[in-house]
């Protein structure tokens, strides 16, 4: 009986917590990693961007005016150039939803959920097509 609440406010809070946990347990969590991927992607991106903004402000030479292409990132990144850090942070953010779709596909594959394996594959394929359309 240790958990049992005393007082009206306590009881309401206890009930809400029980219900919330019940829903979390019931909704089959095929994509347990999704929330982590989304949060992780955003946090890494914001961290890298803040570092880039901070270094740019510290150097006092103004903000970089253009992004670097992915191939150009590696060199300047090792010397912590603001332009490289800002480009990397933005790229991480753009790729976060793509990684999320890929992760869902892995989840559905593991579940052998045929309908959703198809659905996730088409979404991923569409993303690739969109990318190719843009590059060409």
């Amino acid at each position, binding site marked *: 009986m240790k958990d049992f609440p005393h007082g009206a406010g306590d009881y*309401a809070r206890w009930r*809400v917590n029980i*219900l*919330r946990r*019940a*829903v*979390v347990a*019931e*909704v089959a969590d*095929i*994509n347990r990693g*999704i*929330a*982590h991927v*989304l*949060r992780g*992607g*955003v946090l890494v991106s*914001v961290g890298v*961007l*803040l570092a*880039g*903004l901070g270094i*740019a*402000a510290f150097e006092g030479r*103004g*903000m*970089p*005016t*253009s*992004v670097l*292409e992915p191939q150009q990132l590696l060199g300047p990144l090792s010397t912590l150039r603001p*332009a490289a850090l*800002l480009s990397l*942070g*933005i*790229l991480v*953010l*753009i*790729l*976060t*939803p*793509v990684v*999320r*779709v890929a992760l*869902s596909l892995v989840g559905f594959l593991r579940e052998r959920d045929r*309908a*959703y394996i198809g*659905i*996730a594959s*088409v*979404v991923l394929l*569409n*993303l690739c*097509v*969109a*990318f190719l*359309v*843009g*590059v060409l």
Partner: protein
Amino acid sequence: MALGLVELVVFILVPAFLAGVAGSVLGIGGGIFLVPYLTLMPGLGLSLQEAIATSLIGVIATSSGAASVYVRDRLTNLRLGMFLEVATSAGAIAGALVAVYVNTVALFLTFGAVVAFAAAYMLRTREGPRERAELPAEETGLARRLGLSSVYFDPEDGAVYRYRVIRPMAGFAASAVAGGVSGLLGVGGGFIKVPAMNVMMRVPVKVAIATSNFMIGVTAAASALIYFSRGLVEPGVAAMAVVGVFLGTLVGTRVLVRVPAREIRILFAALLGAVGIAMVGKGLGVIP
């Protein structure tokens, strides 16, 4: 033009923060606010394309930041989101491809009308605890096969609601349109998806908002990658926008779950009304 840190904080961080709050509470990316702001604000010196590119980055930040919270709390219907993403992503490609050939006057007028209709509908229907508890009787074969119906916990009244999803193909078609608009105009298209899920598919408004938010990241990522590889993203502005939007989602996601569904519907209807008026104005050439 190179902006300093102080200018970025004042002119980008604060508006981006507001866009992040609005985006996570209303299930939209916030591009509808960010694109006009970034193009109209004097002193930023961004072209329309650069504004769209930068706004798309902000939209992804809103979507991923808010969705991580809504997915964790099981407010997002992941299956419904994946299913409709097929339509939004295909629509976005089609929209981007035909953008050159479309008569924008007709497009804006049509959308003004559609959006105004959705606003009226959202104001007219109620969604109190009683309406939520009443399940629509029929569940069509496809919705059942795809396992779209689900359950969510609403902290507003501390209750668990089971809901059934109906008319999956109607929602699919509306999502394709939303994707097309997003490819054409560089916005997330949440202002179409949320009413479509809520009104047509009978998804509770908070679930519709969380699921729309979840989908927007994928739609925006496709176009953002294109703009990024063309070098149209202004790094300083985009970086500050991401930070601002991220802080906004931290606030907005706390607001959504607590505010009564009725008030969210009224807020959303107001947004739709404003968007409708702006679109008709644009179509008629009253607004530049």
